[in-house]
């Protein structure tokens, strides 16, 4: 079977909208469809839109074991993270001004924490273990009398590792700390049952689950009730927590995407995990490749690999037929390698040499096989060009070389 290039292997960045989702969304835009403002109470246009929004809310809630009343619509997981962390910190600041998070969190969490630091809050950034997972003992030890909020992501966006949010939630609850989880990368991929988890706030994204971009949700637990200070003021939508006219078409899109995920997740994750294993089986035949992050406690569709002695950006350039992302942020002037891999204790060379492969609903085994062959060929070519590979082959210890850092 022939393979069509370029092959999309960047499902952690975003996913295509499922055709079923796109068709549903189209019914909520134009004059022939349901275009009304869900907040309009005085006519059928509004009532129909409101009904669609509530159906979508129920679908999102059902996937994660929440009550629909606990779901707040936002513009995406970044906004959900901001609302959750700033909202809780501002509301509970009389109890204390200390927050705890992890160095490998998404920037939407880390940058929000930085903003709170500028406002006078204190934040502890925990280092994960070398497999990317958080040591629960270290987490508990970081909680203080004045800790009000902890934020730990469920599935890491770069390395795909799955944190034990059940256990972390137990610790937080016993210490009276509000627990926020960024679940942008896990909803629809890992089972989540909020009725059994001691999680107070959870962020979701539409576009990581074959829904549209520009829509997300925040779970705000009702029992026990967690309080937030709104960050967006206006018409008092979403129980006053997030004002702004509801984007009906986006919302029904996310609802439909989550409905489909609930039905197909179990089967899909088995299939995608098989593809991931196929990819790793192929890539691990190459000399000097390293897997970043724990292999077992990892979301099905993620593989993050460092190709030693090959620089990530040049590899991505060589792999133009496959769409992947590099941990190395070489396009920025700072030339900083991935902060996530650095936090794992990976050395700079390996951090500069990392590639994230993420696969999903439309990835095929043929595409994986094509990718493996292409990568083998291009890594060999770049290594032929690499002075580091030459030195390694000659038995030179690269650690012992005096480099002229620039």
């Amino acid at each position, binding site marked *: 079977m022939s393979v069509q290039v370029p092959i999309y292997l960047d499902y952690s960045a975003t996913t295509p909208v499922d055709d079923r989702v796109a068709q549903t969304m189209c019914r909520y835009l134009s004059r022939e469809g349901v275009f009304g403002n869900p907040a309009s109470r005085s006519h059928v246009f509004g009532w129909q839109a409101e009904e669609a929004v509530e159906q979508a809310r129920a679908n999102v809630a059902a996937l994660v074991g929440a009550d629909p009343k606990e779901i707040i619509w936002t513009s995406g997981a970044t906004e959900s993270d901001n609302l959750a962390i700033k909202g809780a910190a501002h509301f509970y600041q009389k109890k204390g001004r200390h927050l705890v998070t992890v160095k490998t969190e998404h920037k939407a969490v880390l940058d929000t924490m930085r903003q709170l630091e500028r406002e006078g809050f204190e934040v502890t950034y925990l280092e994960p273990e070398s497999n990317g997972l958080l040591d629960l003992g270290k987490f508990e030890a970081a909680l203080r009398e004045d800790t009000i909020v902890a934020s730990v992501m469920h599935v890491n966006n770069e390395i795909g590792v799955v944190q034990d949010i059940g256990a972390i939630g137990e610790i937080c609850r016993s210490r009276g700390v509000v627990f926020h989880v960024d679940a942008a990368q896990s909803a629809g991929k890992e089972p989540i049952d909020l009725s059994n988890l001691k999680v107070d706030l959870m962020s979701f994204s539409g576009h990581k689950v074959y829904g549209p971009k520009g829509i997300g949700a925040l779970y705000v637990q009702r029992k026990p009730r967690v309080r937030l200070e709104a960050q967006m003021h206006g018409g008092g939508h979403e129980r006053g927590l997030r004002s702004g006219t509801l984007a009906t078409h986006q919302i029904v899109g996310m609802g439909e995407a989550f409905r489909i995920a609930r039905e197909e997740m179990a089967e899909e994750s088995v299939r995608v995990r098989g593809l991931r294993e196929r990819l790793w089986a192929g890539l691990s035949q190459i000399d000097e490749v390293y897997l970043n992050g724990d292999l077992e406690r990892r979301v099905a569709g993620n593989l993050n690999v460092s190709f030693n002695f090959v620089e990530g*950006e*040049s590899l991505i350039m060589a792999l133009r037929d496959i769409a992947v992302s590099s941990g190395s942020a070489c396009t920025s002037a700072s030339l900083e*390698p991935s902060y996530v891999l650095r936090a794992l204790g990976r050395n700079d060379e390996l951090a500069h040499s990392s590639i994230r492969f993420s696969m999903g609903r439309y990835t095929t085994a043929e595409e994986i096989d094509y990718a493996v062959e292409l990568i083998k060929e291009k890594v060999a070519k770049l290594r032929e060009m*690499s*002075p*580091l590979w*030459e030195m390694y082959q000659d038995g030179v210890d690269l650690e012992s070389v005096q*480099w002229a850092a*620039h």
Partner: protein
Amino acid sequence: MAYSDKVLDHYENPRNVGSFDKSDGHVGTGMVGAPACGDVMKLQIKVNEQGVIEDARFKTYGCGSAIASSSLLTEWVKGKTLDEAGQIKNTDIAEELALPPVKIHCSVLAEDAIKAAIADYQSKSGSGDVAAESA
């Protein structure tokens, strides 16, 4: 990120990839950069009795622009005297390859590499027998 056609050409078809014997008295080797920074460039020149660079080889660990900068450099230095080669400026390389501002350091590294290769050759051969002391 969009690369210029010239960067893509050098990246796809790099010129003069390889190595000379470092211990050869006619060979000068320059190795610059650091793995931690994401770029290491090794440039080697083979210099004849007249002080002219007869041949050049490179190996580069780095992004496409770093590979292209070093590939271009090997083309440029061939046939030049050490003095002439020492005059190559990073700005010439950046201009030829149309490097964006964030990639200027790649051309700087290439300039450092040729200077280091010349210095290595001169230290080996004794600086008196080449007319490039000013470099």
